[in-house]
């Protein structure tokens, strides 16, 4: 018996380097900023005692509240738009023939393999005042003078939806694909029209994957800062932009930590709600 116990322990030792690494550079790093958020600002880039709640109280100022609301609104709208655009797309892909499906999936994944910055940069080129989009609209006679597209909230929303949509389509696609087609057929045989069958059978049954996809699009959206940086300029200060500013411009580490802790808490709340609604981590892996 002794040998099996030793073997079991020896085996676990193999996971030790990874565990030490993760505890040191992930768990401790996160705990460290939580601790920092209760300290006062020190010399330069440091923090010092006494322990204080000032960092959190400071966030009650209108600028920060406004930015938090804007971030939440944009993240919510992003998830919503991804759902409205992504669900039909995922449904369409799942219903095509296997050969076409493979190609469509590659087409969805391929942009995801290219740097997000490049794709956002493409939008910036498009949106520029005398750029291709305005030129096209002008020559088609749809508009009379160039629209202001860049550095608006809408531009940021377009960029965020664009960056996040693969994260919505893929889990929902695998959800629809896993769905047993005979159940839908049964409802049709029992006299439900295609629309009714979709709303009473397909949609409720693929809800777990939709929920997972919403979480997958919502969480990163609150923390993104480079999309609003490039497409929104200084007009759209999202929570991520505020953190970045406090950290790199004001070099206020404790306050930036406190702002990050708020973001971390929001993430945990969303994940907790997701678990409560019956979501499991598995449907988030695709």
């Amino acid at each position, binding site marked *: 018996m002794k040998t099996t116990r030793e073997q079991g322990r020896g085996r676990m030792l193999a996971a030790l380097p990874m565990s030490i690494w993760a505890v040191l550079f992930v768990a401790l790093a996160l705990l460290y900023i939580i601790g920092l958020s209760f300290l006062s600002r020190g010399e330069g880039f440091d923090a010092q005692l006494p322990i204080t709640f000032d960092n959190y109280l400071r966030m009650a100022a209108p600028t920060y509240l406004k930015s938090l609301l804007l971030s939440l609104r944009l993240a919510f709208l992003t998830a919503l738009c991804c759902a409205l655009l992504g669900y039909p797309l995922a449904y369409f892909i799942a219903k095509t023939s296997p050969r076409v499906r493979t190609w469509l999936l590659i087409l969805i994944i391929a942009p995801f393999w290219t740097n997000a910055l490049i794709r956002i940069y493409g939008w910036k080129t498009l949106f520029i005042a005398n*750029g291709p989009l305005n030129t096209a609209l002008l020559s088609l006679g749809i508009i009379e003078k160039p629209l202001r597209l860049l550095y608006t909230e809408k531009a940021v929303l377009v960029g965020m939806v664009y960056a996040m949509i693969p994260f919505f389509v893929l889990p929902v696609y695998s959800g629809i694909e896993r769905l047993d087609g005979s159940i839908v057929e049964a409802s049709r045989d029992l006299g439900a029209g295609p629309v009714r069958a979709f709303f009473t059978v397909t949609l409720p049954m693929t809800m777990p994957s939709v929920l997972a996809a919403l979480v997958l699009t919502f969480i990163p959206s609150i923390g993104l800062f480079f999309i609003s940086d*490039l497409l929104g300029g200084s007009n759209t200060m999202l929570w*991520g932009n505020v953190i970045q500013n406090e950290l790199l411009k004001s070099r206020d580490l404790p306050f930036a930590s406190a702002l990050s802790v708020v973001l971390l808490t929001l993430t945990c709340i969303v994940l907790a709600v997701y678990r409560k609604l019956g979501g499991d981590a598995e449907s988030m892996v695709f």
Partner: protein
Amino acid sequence: MLLLYLPILVVVVFSFNANTTRTATMTFTGFSLQWYKNLFDPISGFGVHLVTSLEVAFWSVLFSCVMGTIGAVGLLHRKKQKSLSGRSLERFINFGEQAAMLPIMIPELIMGIALLALFSFLRLPMGKITLVIAHTSFCIPYILITVKSRLSTLDPSIEEAARDLGASPIRAFLTVTLPLAAPAVLSGCLLAFAMSMDDFVISFFVNGAETTTLPLKVYSSVKVGVTPQVNALCTVMLGAAFLLVAMGQLLSSARGKEKKI
């Protein structure tokens, strides 16, 4: 669907623009390769940044591959421990597994700031070392997921047979388990490599003045405005990414055919 490719198309088209005036990024006047010519110019080119990115990706993938792979082996078939030291080891490893998965669950921004704070506390100068530590941390989960799911499909009796025939645990791992898990390790490494080359947010916080990776360079060039040379760079990067995806697809379909035979 078309919309997904519209911005990419714009970047590609404008990278061939012949227009050299200030409006080079707005009006297309003709075909030219001028923006590609000085792409790897030693002073204004992007060669240095590509090398930095490749170096960081190489070391991060190496470290995360080793730790992630043997970590996945250690996490599998855990036996209930009876002794006190065994139990605390078990608890520590369970916690380690949870912590290892965090970087892909929480916003990247938080990881970046947490690591920046930790590094400045440790008085580590920002540079290649901090970049490699950060990238290794977020590469581990990708390796762990792929290798663990592959290992869980393997029959544990194969390894037990090797042990019964007298192989030491390390030999059994090297000659039996590792070869069987190799495809998963490789695909995990590819994924980790792509993630490392692509990472902008975390690198943004932990890079040094001398270690600007390619995505960071792209960001600083496009932040101020639209620069035509970046179009050429982006087109090259796009081409490389598509080539990699196509190669991966070919590899996996070839493997699929092998299985059928």
